[in-house]
């Protein structure tokens, strides 16, 4: 779970970005997503929130990978092979444990989590969406209102250029669906602060 401390860390790190980007070698990973759609969209099939996201992603021309909690098959047969050729951008709504695995693996290939929305279930029956990420994505997500899945699919299909110079956190509330566990919407993308990626 993210918290204020993590966010502050991200913000502090982000504030050092320009100098580090300048030092990045020519052959390193691309600086970030360059304003394109996600190359992979991942949907947790036990989650109504994620399924709705997946349906909208299909409508927008994306081909979601459907997982049931365990990312092993997707990672082993698809992502690992692709990441060994170079970092990529991907988006998903999954259980937090699936994101933990993806995030941990992605680090070795020059990618990190750029944006995440943690969907906490409130005692009163609603969702609290805790958003962390670049200013542009957080502001865009804050406008999703009760249409989170649709809005997030739109974001995944057409990401703006990711700019890590200004980070935001924001909390929203909306109606809730019945979920199998702690759900997270996320975007993983190449990260300019990694000088090179380790696995090839």
């Amino acid at each position, binding site marked *: 779970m993210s918290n204020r401390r993590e966010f502050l860390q991200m913000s502090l790190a982000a504030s050092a970005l320009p100098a580090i980007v300048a030092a990045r070698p020519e052959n390193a990973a691309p600086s970030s997503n360059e304003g394109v759609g996600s190359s992979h969209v991942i949907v947790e099939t*036990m989650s109504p929130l994620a399924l709705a996201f997946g349906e909208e992603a299909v409508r927008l021309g994306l081909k979601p990978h459907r997982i049931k909690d365990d990312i092993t098959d997707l990672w*082993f047969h698809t992502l690992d092979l692709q990441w060994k050729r170079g970092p990529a951008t991907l988006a998903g709504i999954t259980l937090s*444990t699936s994101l933990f695995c993806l995030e941990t693996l992605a680090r070795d290939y020059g990618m990190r989590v750029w944006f995440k929305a943690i969907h906490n279930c409130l005692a009163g029956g609603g969702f609290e969406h805790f958003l962390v990420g670049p200013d542009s994505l957080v502001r865009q997500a804050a406008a999703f209102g009760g249409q989170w899945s649709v809005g997030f699919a739109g974001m995944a299909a057409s990401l703006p250029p990711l700019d890590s110079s200004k980070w935001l956190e924001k909390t929203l509330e909306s109606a809730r669906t019945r979920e199998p566990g702690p759900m997270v919407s996320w975007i993983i993308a190449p990260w300019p602060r990694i000088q090179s990626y*380790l696995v090839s």
Partner: protein
Amino acid sequence: MALPPDVNAKAFADAIKQFQGAVGKDWVFTSDDDVALYKDAYSPFWGEKEEILVSAAVAPNTAEEVSQVVRIANTFRIPIYPISTGKNLGYGGSAPNLSGSVVLDLKRMNRIIEVDDKRHFAIVEPGVAYFDLYRHMQEKGLKVWADVPDPGWGSLIGNALDHGVGYGFGGFRDHFYSHCGMEVVLPNGEIVRTGMGALPGAKTWAEYHYGAGPYVDGLFSQGNFGVVTKMGFHLLPAPEAYLTGTVIVPKRSDIIPLVEGGNRLEHAGVIGMPEYGSPLGGFGGPPDPELRSLLAKPGGASVAELEQHAEKTNRGFFSLTVQFYGGEKVVRAQWEYAKEVFAGIRGVKFNAGDFIKFPATPEQLEKAHKVAIGVPNMSIFTIGARSAFNPSPTDGHLWFSPIIPKSGEAVLEAQDVFMKAFRDLNMPSLVSPFSVPATWMFRAFVFIMGLPVYRNNIEQNKKTRELVKHLIQVGADHGWGEYRTPPAFQQQVTDLYSFNNHALRRLHETLKDAVDPNGIISAGRYGIWPKQMREQRKA
């Protein structure tokens, strides 16, 4: 950035420059953001000043580059901390014992040197993960299995050097035990090969452990005497078939003959890893509501009451799932033989389990406990891994891992002792009268518990640390020591291995001073500190 102790900024900058010269500047990481990746994801000190921070990371590509880095570190007295792939969740992740250390990240060294499916061995570098070796064997159609841990993203070498374990057959699942031969960069930068590898042109480096003369490989496991850059492993010939069966016994005391039978079968090579459980709610399982109310009685439920409940619900008290590997005729005969071994236990029941004739179908693979059949995976993180005791997983855990004897008597004693330990601290117990040990070790049990850590709850983390310290001491008071522990507890754990006025520690220190006089490699790992830090650290 946390500078290494007693190293000034200029010297550190000079060292970084030389590291860049050795491995290329793309492979030296110094930004706060990059070095933050080496923090322990499950740190028990998250957000506290005691949290271990590294100063930089260096990622060499060859043993020769490792050697250069080590020589530079010696020149500048920079402490370095080698990691392979750096996962090690619950036991410290990739964080060192000493803040300011430079992580020597060996992920780029990911070459599979050799896999032989006729003589059943592999030789790999530290960056090779179980997934990588599995992919290689699948792509080449090799008829061998590597024993795999949970999850499968770890390094074969890193896991073995930390005394990691798996789920398969016999000694294979003790990954250090099943290693054979090493290449090691010593603290002075010299490269040595152990066992048969010391013989130029040797044909059996990964097959015969010892070569001639003293056997030194153990020094490099959980140690700080060198950087392992290659290692051989014995592999299991891929079996024709796999069969499981479950033995269920009705009384609590039946765990004693159940373990005796399990030992007899396992130590004779008849079964793979025995898996003990309790139909009443053992390792991670929930007691039902009636049972819960029984357990909640003042003073707890009596054994007679628990056994009556087991009988009434027709579930049995303990179970043992046995796993057979081999030819189809053989495994079916072995299950019949196993039933004979347990037939003398009054009220015993037998349930036939899974049968797979390889190659497994996708449906069989989906249903199987994949690690038991050599398939690395990450399902340990799935929702199914959550237990009734822990329905909402925390941000991480610390493993408390005491080794206890492989007997039913020891299991019952450990239950009683650790339930009391939790009561003494007025904390909810993770141990119940149905708790069973993990059986990864071939010749001992580990009565493992995962204690929660949080990224946003310093007070709770303090309580968890106190609990772990208490459990470590209680275990030692009963003759049970940890087999592995996070850096935060390595000093306490190894202090307790104190026979003859800490003779083992003094031997380690003598060796450390001789082999690594500047104390540059993994300072403090498992309680072995460099000479210049020793007294201060002990204080």
